Structures are given as C-alpha cells and as structure tokens.
C-alpha cells in the first residue's frame, strides 16, 4: 500500500516508541479474542492492496459497499421487527409504524406459529400471541395485511421451519389483493441450519429441513423473482453467545451449504444467488462490528466467485439486514439502552447495511411499547438525516485500525470455516455439535467475565442504582387474545370444506414422500384453509421430528 522505505522508517520509529512508552498498559482483546494494539499506523496495513482488497463501492470484492451510490442513492430500509396478539392488533401496529416513517415491514410470529402448532394445540396454552402474532390460517394472514398493499410495501417474515406455510399464505393474500407474484418483494428467514446451532425452533431433522429451504429458493427463482427466499442469519448465533468471528464464520458456512445444495438441483448460481440475503447482529464493540460487516462482504464475494463460479456482480453481493443486539440491553436503568442501540445502529450504517432494525429500550422487560418502538425508529431517522454520515460511502475506509481489523476478523473467521469444511460442511459439523459447543463456551466465558467485572456492563455490574424502581410504559398482551384466536380458529374449521382440506393434505404428503418441491402443494392446502398445524403434522409424518443432542 505504501512506499516500502516509508514503511520501514515507521516500523523502526515504532519499535523505539514501544520501548519507551507502552510499558504498563494492560492487554486488551475484543470479543473475538483478537489482541488490540495501542495504536495503528501505515505499517499495520502495508499488505493491503486497494484494488484487490477494497476497490470502489459497487466493484468486486465490494468491501466498501455493494452499490455504487449506497445511501446517497437510497437509504437503508428501516424495518422494525414486530408482532403480537391477534392479526388485527399487529396490523394496527404496522400501520402506525408505516405512518411514522418505517419503510418496510417485518413480522414477528408467536412461539406456537414458529414451532408449527395451532393456537388450539394443548402445547400452545398460555403462549398464543404472547411474543409475536398468532397465525393459524390464511384468514389470519389476510387480517394481518388488511389495508396494506403488497405491491407497495416489502415484508420480511421471521419464520423458519414452517416457512412454506407462511410464505404460501402471503402469496395467497397477494393474489387476493390482485397483486401478481412478480410484483411482491420481501424476505422469509427460512434458515434451518442456524436453528440447530442457535435459535432452536427447529421441527424436522437437518436433511429434510435443508431440503425445504431449497424448495423455497427453487420456487422463488421460478415464480417470485423479487423475493429473498432466505436470510442467512448470524444474529441468533451471536445472541446465543458466539464471538463476532464465530458469528461471521458460522453464518457464511451456513450460506455456503445452501448455495451448494441449490446448485445440486441444477440451478445456475447466477440465477438464484442475487436473491440470497444475510442477517447480522450489531453488537457493542463498535469497530469490531464494522470490520465484521466489511469482511463479510469481501468474503462472500470471494466465495461466490471462486468457490461457485459466479459471474454476475449481483450474485456476489452480500446484501444484509442488521438488528442491534438484544442480549446487550439491560433490565437495569433501561433508558440507557437508547444510547446502546444508537451506537450499535451507527456501526451497522457505517458497515453498509441494506436494512436495519433497532431494538426498543424496554427489550429486557417486554415486547416494545408504542413509545419505545417510536424512539427506536427515530434513532434510525436521526442517524440518516442529522448525523451526516450518509454523505459519503464507507467513510472509515483507509483507517489504519479498521482496515487491519477487517483483515484480522476475516482471518479468524476463515479458521473456523476451514475447520467446518474439513468436517464435511456445516450439516456434518452441527451433527457433531461443533458450532453449538463453541457458542456455549463463548457464552459461559463471557458470563464469567461479567461476573468478575472484567467486562463492565453499566448499571448491571458497575454504576448500579440500588434503589432503582424501573418505571417504563407497560405493554401487556391481553389474555383475551387466546380466547379470540381460539374462537376464530374454531369457526374456520367448522366452515371450511373439510374434504378439500384432506384431499390437499394427502397430495402434499405424497409429494413430500416422493421428494417433490412441496411449495405448490402447501399453497393449495393453505388456500382451502388447512391450518398451519395440520400442514406441519402432515410433513412431520414424512420427515420425522428432530430430537436435539444437547451440548453444553
């Protein structure tokens, strides 16, 4: 990067400086265990080659950004993850957020829905609508998007194992609105692998789960071209306790698996890759996060080109959504969380995210109150309109520290990716419990550091307020919700054409047994008001149910 004599001079001067100065400063490492120097200078990034390692925005390897104009051309999407109670209640929250300036929708489903159970299943008792919206049938989906034109708004749905069902419902709602499938845009999370590693809302065993992921990709390539059929996620991996390097490595490894599996179905990488998207966490260590996002862009581009032979730029773009870290927010002195979220969001923007969710300050207590979610949204709006950082692309490029850290975190992540490759890929690695063990160890080590104050958390292990009485606007889910939902479900079951439901469920079962793409069959079942639970039960009969081998 620099003139070699110049670098030699710097190195000599630095050695002398280090001898004189840096005696008693304790060592510092970041979350990924990378030791951080007291300062960085040109000699730290001498190996960097601008053309090869950075290049311009919108040019391979896209380290500085996937688009030529980035936020100057179009701001990131402000997409607040929300959902609670019945579909009508969530619909109102969506309309509120859209009116307050959010630019994309994001659906949070309740636990029964996430795990493929209907609201009237005994196991759902007490959980209906409590931490997300309850969706049992197409009727609920219609109510969820009542008055929201699906050709004008994009929607992200955080759903994994039951993706075919919820996606099928969304497609049916679009049809009912008179919107054709090539007009709708959005994302389904649909990332089975990270369920086994971190989030644990799996249903079927790994192989059929991955098969369903690819079914959705294949279907979208043909029929829903503007849709992102998967959001390869690191957020949950990070929240479960991994380091930044592990988050990066395990996420990309998951992605590499999906790409290979899709190619195995004879789909051309340049046809499906442009619609793959990713999802990262924005945690506390400001620069480590920015470095992580930049490294992710570069690594993804290189993998797509070198490992999979992608030719189009769009196939190599690492398009990603970011959510600020929930686990980093505290129950104590919750207003402090507003500051935490602002800093985390800033790192995501400086990291070039395409879409952002900011957490609400009451994260450690409840689902977001209206006041709290508004502040979270305003945080993004203030960053975008008042801070000036959107004036130029990748403003921190060239920073000695950041470029060094970007390289370093790529190096650390590659160690994990190589290990996983040697195990035979992520499916084999997770069967051996490898990523799960790494995450559990990192989580335990972190907690010990917090307990012995090596890691300070303001308000929790330092600067505490013993007499604190937390006063925040409360947000409770009305217990009536469960009754209302059960009544609605009962009505639908009584009024639908039972014969048609059974006919389509049977066809679905046969299709699953003969390894066909199940999406069209799920769609037909959904249209005759088969319930989520009924469809998932049908698939369970074919694929079985996954039993977790616990790893501490």
């Amino acid at each position, binding site marked *: 990067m620099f003139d070699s004599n110049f670098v030699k001079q710097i190195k000599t001067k630095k050695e002398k400086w280090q001898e004189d100065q840096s005696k008693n400063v304790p060592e510092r490492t970041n979350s990924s265990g990378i030791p951080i120097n007291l300062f960085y200078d040109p000699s730290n990034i001498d190996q960097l080659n601008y053309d090869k390692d950075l290049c311009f925005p919108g040019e391979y390897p896209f380290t500085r950004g996937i688009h030529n104009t980035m936020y100057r051309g179009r701001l990131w999407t402000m997409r607040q993850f929300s959902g609670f109670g019945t579909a009508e209640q969530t619909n109102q929250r969506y309309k509120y957020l859209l009116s307050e300036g959010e630019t994309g929708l994001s659906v949070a489903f309740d636990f029964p829905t996430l795990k493929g159970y209907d609201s009237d299943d005994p196991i759902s008792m007490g959980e209906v609508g409590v931490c997300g919206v309850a969706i049992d049938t197409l009727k609920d989906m219609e109510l969820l998007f009542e008055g929201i034109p699906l050709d004008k708004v994009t929607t992200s749905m955080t759903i994994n194992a039951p993706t075919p069902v919820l996606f099928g419902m969304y497609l049916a709602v679009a049809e009912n609105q008179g919107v054709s499938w090539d007009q709708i845009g959005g994302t389904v999370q649909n990332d089975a692998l990270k369920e086994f590693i971190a989030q644990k809302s799996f249903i079927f065993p790994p192989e059929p789960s991955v098969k369903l992921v690819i079914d959705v990709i294949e279907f979208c390539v043909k029929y829903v071209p503007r849709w992102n059929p998967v959001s390869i996620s690191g957020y949950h991996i990070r929240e479960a306790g991994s380091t930044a390097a592990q988050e990066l490595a395990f996420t990309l490894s998951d992605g590499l698996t999906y790409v290979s599996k899709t190619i195995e179905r004879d789909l051309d990488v340049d046809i499906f890759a442009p619609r793959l998207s990713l999802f990262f966490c924005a945690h506390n260590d400001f620069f480590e996060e920015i470095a992580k996002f930049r490294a992710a862009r570069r690594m993804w581009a290189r993998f797509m080109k070198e490992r999979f032979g992608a030719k189009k730029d769009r196939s190599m773009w690492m398009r990603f959504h970011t959510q600020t870290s929930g686990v980093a927010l505290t129950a104590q002195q919750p207003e402090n969380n507003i500051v935490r979220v602002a800093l985390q969001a800033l790192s995501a923007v400086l990291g070039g995210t395409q879409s952002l969710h900011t957490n609400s300050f009451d994260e450690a207590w409840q689902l977001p109150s209206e006041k709290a979610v508004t502040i979270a949204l305003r945080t993004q709006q203030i960053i975008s309109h008042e801070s000036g950082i959107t004036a130029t692309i990748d403003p921190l490029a060239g920073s000695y520290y950041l470029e060094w850290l970007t390289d370093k975190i790529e190096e650390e992540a590659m160690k994990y990716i190589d290990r996983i490759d040697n195990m035979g890929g992520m499916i084999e690695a997770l069967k051996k419990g490898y990523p799960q063990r790494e995450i559990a160890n990192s989580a335990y080590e972190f907690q010990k550091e917090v307990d012995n104050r090596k890691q300070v958390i303001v308000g929790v292990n330092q600067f505490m307020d013993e007499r604190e009485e937390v006063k925040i606007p409360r947000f409770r889910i009305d217990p009536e919700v469960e009754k209302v939902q059960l009544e609605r479900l009962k009505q639908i079951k009584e009024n639908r054409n039972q014969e048609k439901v059974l006919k389509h469920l049977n066809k679905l079962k046969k299709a699953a047994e003969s390894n066909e793409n199940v999406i069209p069959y799920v769609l037909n079942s959904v249209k005759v008001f088969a319930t989520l639970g009924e469809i998932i039960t049908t698939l369970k009969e074919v694929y079985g149910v996954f*039993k977790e*081998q*616990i790893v*501490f």
Partner: protein
Amino acid sequence: MDVQTLVDGLFKGDIISTTRLISLIENDFVKAQEIIRKIYPHTGNAHVIGITGPPGSGKSSLVNKLALTWRNRGKTIGIIAVDPSSPYSGGALLGDRIRMREISGVEGIFIRSMATRGSLGGLARATRDAINILDASGKDVVIVETVGAGQSEVEIMKVAQTIVMVLCPGLGDEIQAMKAGTMEIADIFAVNKSDKPEAMETVNDLERMLNYEGLDESKVGWMPLIVSTSSTANIGIEELVDKIEEHQGFLTSMTSEALHEKRAAMELVDTLITKIENEAIKKAKESPVYNELVKKIVEKKIDPYQAADIILRKYMTN
C-alpha cells in the same frame, strides 16, 4: 418420613418412596445400611443390565429405545444413568436424562441420574444399592448406564447380570486399544449408528477381535453376540432386546448356585471396602489419633500395617 414408611411405600411401587430412598442411600451411609437390611430379601427379581462403552457411542439414545421397547412389551423399567463429578468443584452436569427425552415422564419408566462423586470406576458408590432399591420396588428391568470412561467395564461387571457394550463406527481405534480382558466382559456388543456405511467395518473388526480372544463356548457357555443397531433409525432394537432376554434365560438355566455365589462374594468384598472407608477411615480421620499415627509412620516408629490394625480395632468394633 421415616425409613419404614418409605420402605413400605417402595414395595408398593410408590415413586416418591423410591426416589427418597435412593437419595438416602446416596447420602446417608448409616440409613443406607438400615434400608438395605430391610429390602435385601426382596431383591433378585429384576434383570439388571449394564450398558457401557466409550463416550459418544450413543448409550443414552440406545437405552431410550430399549426402555421403550420393553415398555411396549409390558415391562416396567428403572434406569440409573451415571455421569462424572467434576474433580474441581465436586458438582456434576448430569446429561443423560436429556438424551432420553422420549421416555422422560412415561409411566412405568423411572430414570435417575447419579454423579460418580469421586468414584473412579465409572459408577457411583451408591449405584449398587440404587439397583437394589429399584429391584425391590418391583421393576422388571433395571438398566445401568456407565460413564463410559476409565474402569467402567470392570465396575459394571460387578453389579449387572447382562452387560451390553455399545460401540460405533469412527471409534475404530477404540476397539484396537481396548484393554485386555475387557472384550471378555461384554455379553453382547451393540454396534450403534449402524445406518452409517462404516458400521460394517466396525462389526468385522469386532468379530476378528473376538475370534482372536479364542473364547471357548464350552468353557464360558455364552458366546458374546454382536447386534447392529441404530437408535436414530430404529434398527436392531427389538433384536437387541431379544438377545438380552436370551442371555437372561441362559443365566437362569445355568448351574445358578456357583454364579450367584460369585456375585454375592463380589458384593460382600465391595461392601466391606465401603464400610471400612465410611466408618473406620472416616472416623479415624476425624480424630487426633490419625495424625499421631501418620507422624509415627514418618518417624518409622510404626509401620503402616500396624497403624491400620490400630485403626481397624478401634473403629470397626460396634
């Protein structure tokens, strides 16, 4: 609740009595003896099966399936799953129960996790007594799952009637490295994860090793069997259960006196050792006599045998 009430409850198969008695024998050496005195005549009806094998071979998942199969055949099952205690903290993470999720809570199946608490043999000291309790409570089958490391194979032989060693592909070196004599301990070898292609190789390796051992049916009466199983794919489970029951039949048909006496003798010796540890040694350590004796040994005023005699005489007389 006093011991008699608990024991009465035990004979009726009451779960709370069973569980409280196991805790007592685990923790209270004095009460343990009282309990065993009361229940011992009622033992000897259950078929005690030891499940051993290296970590990672899938013992717990196999036990899970075995228990289900027996349940379907109308039997009641007690399971003792042993995990190691941490040498640093003395605590333990008992992780076998979670691997038996299918049977946790099923009626007629009782699962108890136990920590080794310093015992190096792959079983807890109290395991044998816990087996007796489950036996006396009327369980048809009692399965004991060892830690799988260390001297597990030898220990399990002392407490179980039928020993199943669980192996799986990918642990090929384990078979080669197996200590001499351990191959003779297992009555049945279960080659688990047999849905994997390499499993056939493991079976072949095993057969070769058994032939090498030169076991003579006429001498031992029972030739170790190999069964291919897969707990995830549900292969070979029924067969394994059948073979285990076959072994039970063999044991019953044998000249039982010699075998029973051999077992009883082992139990007596083990119990003697436990009593000495818990009474003589424990009490001695609590008294100043102990340190005095130690000093005398250092000064060569007495030898360790004399010191031991002094302790036994002083603390073993009731």
